């Protein structure tokens, strides 16, 4: 992955009259941290980085911008937001576009084929308490990790994020400019889901009740999710109050079921929710179950193009109904 090419593309994008700012990454303050950053001018692009440590998805920032209503007949200024998009980000963008969450002409997408990112938990477990800034690059299936003046080599498989191991769309599906060479996709693998479904019901319920009871309801999973952009989220509503604010297992179960179900047929499996969870609850397991079902039952995959209709708002007369009495 050539960082200079990405920087060139970024400064070209910022040179355009209609681009307001660019969303990218910059070095974090310590260790393996990388933070999302906003770039207004061409000079700032020197700060821009892109490495396997850039795990955070940038797509959620698109729907966070406040659009102030204008008086009378005045129209919003036609300005674009540029952003770096990997495969999963581009699927999230596609899905948002399909739901008409944001107009296409407000986006300038710089697509980056992605070889997979590092799971921060895995690398921090391997190199604990690193405070000086570290850099990582990928070479021949290995990560070269530079901490201070030391250099380490770690096989890619050991640090790769779980979501990336089964990524079917590492190449951006929607973009205005593409940098870099295309990457071979991984195979979809739902073995963990099918083997889970063979376990007895009581064991499954006990596992999930244990997991849900650990939830502290910080809603980090919701905030990190590129598709959780509703302005009125049912979790914030007081009338009707679907989920009470008290933190007990029953309320947590309701929260997690509604979070997962609202992403049915919309989740692009970027793994952001699980990454953001401070308690390490396996949220992707629920998402992947729904993803598998939507794929099997309705042959639909989220975010493949910007026109498709959500499987929850359409139907086939021949849909399966063997569960109906």
């Amino acid at each position, binding site marked *: 992955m050539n960082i200079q090419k990405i920087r060139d593309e970024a400064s070209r994008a910022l040179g355009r009259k209609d681009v307001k700012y660019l969303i990218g990454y910059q070095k974090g303050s310590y260790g393996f941290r990388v933070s999302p950053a906003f770039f207004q001018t061409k000079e700032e692009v020197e700060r821009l980085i892109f490495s396997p440590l850039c795990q955070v998805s940038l797509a959620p920032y698109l729907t966070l911008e406040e659009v102030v209503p204008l008086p009378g007949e005045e129209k919003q200024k036609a300005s674009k937001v540029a952003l770096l998009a990997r495969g999963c980000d581009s699927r999230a963008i596609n899905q948002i576009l399909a739901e008409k969450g944001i107009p296409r002409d407000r986006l300038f997408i710089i697509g980056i084929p992605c070889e997979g990112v590092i799971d921060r938990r895995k690398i921090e477990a391997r190199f604990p308490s690193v405070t000086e800034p570290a850099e990582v690059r990928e070479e021949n299936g290995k990560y070269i990790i530079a901490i201070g003046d030391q250099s380490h080599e770690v096989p890619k498989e050991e640090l790769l994020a779980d979501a990336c191991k089964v990524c079917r769309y590492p190449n951006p599906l929607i973009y205005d400019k593409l940098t870099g060479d295309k990457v071979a996709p991984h195979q979809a693998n739902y073995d963990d889901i099918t083997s889970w479904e063979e376990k007895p019901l009581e064991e499954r319920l006990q596992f999930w009740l244990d997991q849900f009871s650990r939830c502290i309801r910080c809603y980090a999973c919701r905030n990190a999710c590129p598709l959780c952009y509703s302005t009125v989220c*049912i979790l914030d509503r007081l009338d009707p109050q679907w989920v009470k604010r008290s933190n007990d297992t029953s309320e947590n179960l309701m929260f997690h079921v509604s979070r997962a179900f609202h992403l049915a047929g919309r989740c692009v499996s970027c793994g952001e929710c699980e990454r953001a969870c401070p308690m390490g609850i396996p949220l992707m397991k629920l998402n992947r*179950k729904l993803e598998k*079902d939507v794929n099997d039952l309705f042959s639909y995959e989220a975010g493949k193009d910007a026109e498709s209709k959500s499987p929850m708002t359409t139907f086939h007369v021949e849909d399966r109904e063997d569960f109906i009495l």
Partner: protein
Amino acid sequence: MSEFEPNIVAFLCNWCSYAGADLTGTSRIHYPPNVKVIRVMCTGRMNPLFVVQALRQGADGVLISGCHPGECHYLKGNYLARRRFMLMRNLLGFIGINPLRLRMSWVSASEGKKFADVVTTVTEDIKKIGPQQSFTREAV
């Protein structure tokens, strides 16, 4: 100890199943008194989360009943409901809630007998599974 009597919430669509249940009564057909009926305008109006809420708030099972496919008063409400509850049922099973606690049926306004049969089946199934107590909402 007396036998466990399940508490079943039945969401019936206004145009078919509710009228069907009415016919069951007027035809003097006996069915188990465990169902509490909530009338909704269409099964498509049902938020799948209603099911989880009902199970949390004291129901041992949920029955959803609507018009037969193709006979929906709003043309496609039951088709949409079919998809949603299919997924919801799978998701509940995945987290270990017995899928038999969520049942769905098509009962038209003339099928009084079928409604009685459906309620009998659902009640008997839930009697076998036992009460839902693992994630009941705390009383306020």
